[in-house]
């Protein structure tokens, strides 16, 4: 079974295009934000909601996607976290932006309102994006980004073909739990023992992202040095495999939410 999963992930990753990146889609981002909200301390929640104008952080979960064209700092490429293919360590614009964003927010009381809001919306969104398998990219030792290409996924039931990124930003969650709202995701995922959450929170931001990357790196081990997949190669996706990928996606949603809460508690909990 693992062989099939690897093969599918290869196919999926090969399909990724940075042209239309919306990561989890609205549902997934709202789920990550709501899980985070439910893991905030009372003090952090109160401070945070006061700072963002008495809204839930869920309200702004996809803000960065909607206003992407207005903010070059978080352009479409910055929504992808890039990693060294050998070490899994994050490199490039995405991680640098994230570090800068968190650093700025630690001094949020002294930030101009517009700067604060842009950065808090970016943090809420990007913690979700960086936990989405579709937003993992690798560079090799020559500094070349591993290019994703034209794989398409052919679904057998019902018969249809989807692009790689769309698979992650809408198709997968819709297929598995299309009738769930963000509150349903939270109810289903957030009630794991605290020890499980503690395990997710071990290490630093870089460690978390490295773990995400390493979780996908094995995909590249089966195609060493390959930069581009054959065009128009279809991968047949059967439902049992899709279900397994769905479980993987749900775990990433939970991790994203719990980790976002930890960062927000650190900033707003004092």
């Amino acid at each position, binding site marked *: 079974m693992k062989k099939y999963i690897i093969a599918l992930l290869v196919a999926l990753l090969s399909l990724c295009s940075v042209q239309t990146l919306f990561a989890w889609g*609205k*549902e997934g981002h*709202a789920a990550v934000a709501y899980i985070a909200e439910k893991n905030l301390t009372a003090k952090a929640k109160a401070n945070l909601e006061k700072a963002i104008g*008495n*809204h*839930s952080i*869920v*309200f702004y979960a*996809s803000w960065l996607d*909607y*206003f992407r*064209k*207005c903010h070059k700092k978080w352009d479409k490429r910055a929504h992808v976290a890039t990693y060294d293919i050998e070490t899994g360590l994050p490199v490039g614009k995405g991680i640098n932006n994230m570090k800068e964003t968190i650093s700025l927010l630690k001094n949020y009381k002294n930030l101009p309102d517009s700067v604060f809001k842009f950065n808090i919306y970016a943090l809420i969104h990007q913690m979700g994006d960086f936990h989405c398998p579709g937003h993992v990219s690798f560079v090799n030792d020559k500094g070349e980004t591993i290019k994703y290409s034209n794989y398409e996924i052919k679904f057998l039931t019902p018969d249809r073909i989807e692009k790689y990124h769309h698979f992650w930003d809408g198709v997968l969650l819709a297929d598995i739990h299309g009738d769930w*709202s*963000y*509150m349903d995701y939270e109810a289903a995922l957030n009630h794991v023992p605290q020890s499980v959450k503690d395990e997710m929170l071990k290490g630093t931001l870089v460690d978390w992202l490295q773990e995400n990357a390493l979780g996908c790196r094995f995909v590249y081990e089966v195609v060493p040095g390959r930069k581009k997949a054959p065009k128009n190669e279809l991968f047949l996706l059967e439902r049992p495999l899709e279900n397994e990928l769905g479980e993987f996606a749900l775990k990433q949603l939970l991790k994203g939410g719990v980790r976002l809460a930890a960062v927000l508690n650190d900033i707003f909990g004092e």
Partner: protein
Amino acid sequence: MKKIIIVICFVFAVIPATKLRAWDRGIHSGIVALAEANLTQTAKKNLRSYFNNESLVLWAQWTDDLEQCKGHEQLRNYHNVALTTKGAIMPIKKAAKSKNKFLKTALAMEGLEKSLKELSSYKTLDAEKVRELVCMVMTILADIHCPSHYIFDKMTEDDLRPEYYRDNNTKPENFLRLWEAGAFQANFSVWRAREYVHQLSRLTQEQINETVSGSLKSWIEKNARNYANLSSYVKNHPIMLKKQYRLKSSDYRLWLNTVNPVAVDAVQKAGYRIARVLNGIFDDTILEVSLN
């Protein structure tokens, strides 16, 4: 039995119903959920005794579904409000006699006035009648917070049904449909009824007082002022290329970003105001909202 008949009617009429509706079904449910969350305990308990202990959210679309059934076609006239060119509510009789087909069918005020008058003595009515009237009030009040339901005197077909093209598409798109669903759903289509409550039931008491102060007509005329320039707003928006009303696809998201806050504000106001009206009727300790 009546509910079953309505459901059957709805199934057969679902396509035209979709075309006629103001806010879409999800938004109507969300507005009513928001209203229900802001009822007083007394009003909520009292109301539920007329609704088989069911949530009002289950009934959010009841009137819209009923109007698709034979014998209830008159309800279709209760979506739009007729206004003078200056934005004052037009007398019902004058609107009904108008030669303008849009004004003639913009009789939401008639539906609202009739329903509220009958509900003022709801204790003398049977439960079925009370349900029908409450549903009517919920639907009309939700609709009159939708920017596309204001019909001003002398409006033309072009004003009422402005269409635009995206890039080189040959098929025009309708801006009113965008207001009725897209402007809100573009950002928040993942919300269900309880998510509307989580997101929008957050006003402070001071903000609530401000939102629900005034009479029903003052709410409507204030909305009318806000939405009066809808047509020109569409046509004169800086990103809209003039003459052909042609919008670059790349600017579409920017346009949505500008209209989404208007839609969110409208939905939130509708929810709180429905609660205010129902509290006034079904909680004896609360004054009724005056019509004028």
